[in-house]
């Protein structure tokens, strides 16, 4: 007889089960995926949140923006004076507000994932709504900023600084809009139970990228002199 059969046949060995096994049974009774509750695949040491392809896309996007930042700095070195003069027309305070808005939105999307992981779907939907509101607020401030610049004749064609300003912030602005739409889609999908933590984590990865790109754009265009 195999030793495993001997042990399984002995009732005394089944009296004290490890706590982990009991937890697994509880999850099975509740019909809940253990990995979803814990938020990570416990069978793996390393864990990639959401879709790995999103991380590849995010990285490529970050490289493109890094090239744009490099081009800006390279062109700036040729003639700094118009850059410094034009920069004085930007509002640092609006830039700070936008930074705070995006940081807060990133925090709420993290909390939305945490809420969904423990099965609090309604709370997660509230947090996603707050994140979307932050995205909309950022867009509103950006449009106000563009309108202010355009109303005093500062456009893409004014000089090199404003060309870079409109291209870099414009590309970032498009990312914010795309992210807000993605959040809206994932909101309805979670509400109708057609998506879960995995999809939300993928959208959150993209949203965090939007946030961290702004953290570079803000000092690059608004602060550094």
């Amino acid at each position: 007889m195999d030793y495993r059969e001997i042990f399984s046949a002995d009732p005394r060995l089944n009296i004290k089960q490890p706590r982990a096994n009991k937890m697994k049974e509880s999850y099975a009774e509740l019909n809940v995926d253990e990995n979803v509750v814990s938020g990570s695949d416990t069978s793996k040491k390393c864990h990639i949140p959401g879709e790995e392809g999103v991380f590849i896309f995010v990285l490529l996007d970050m490289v493109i923006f890094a090239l744009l930042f490099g081009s800006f700095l390279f062109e700036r070195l040729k003639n700094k004076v118009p850059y410094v003069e034009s920069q004085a027309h930007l509002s640092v305070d609006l830039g700070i507000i936008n930074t705070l808005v995006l940081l807060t939105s990133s925090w709420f999307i993290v909390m939305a994932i945490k809420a969904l992981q423990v099965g609090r779907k309604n709370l997660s939907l509230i947090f996603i709504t707050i994140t979307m509101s932050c995205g909309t607020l950022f867009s509103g401030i950006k449009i106000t900023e563009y309108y202010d610049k355009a109303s005093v004749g500062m456009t893409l064609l004014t000089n090199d600084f404003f060309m870079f300003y409109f291209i870099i912030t414009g590309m970032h602005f498009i990312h914010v809009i795309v992210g807000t739409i993605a959040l809206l889609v994932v909101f309805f999908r979670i509400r109708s139970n057609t998506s879960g933590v995995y999809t939300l984590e993928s959208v959150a990865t993209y949203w965090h990228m939007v946030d961290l790109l702004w953290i570079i754009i803000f000092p690059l265009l608004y602060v550094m002199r």
Partner: protein
Amino acid sequence: MQFFMVRESLVWLLLIAATASTWFISSNTSSGVDFTNGSRFMVVLIAAIKIRLILREFMHVKGMPFVWKAVFDAWLLAVSMLLYTGFVII
């Protein structure tokens, strides 16, 4: 309220404090004080710390395979050096 008592909330507070520091440096220099190389260095350093916090704590890069961590850190190092070189060294 207990739901918010997590590590990520502390990270968010740190990010807000870091942003306030950047605002303080910026407002100090715009009110007549010269933008020194020290101020520029601090602004780049604060931005780099903020990005690393977002990458590791919000995007959970710290739990990802080594290659991913290395690639994101390399990007951050490259962009920080770019900013520092563009505004301070040259």
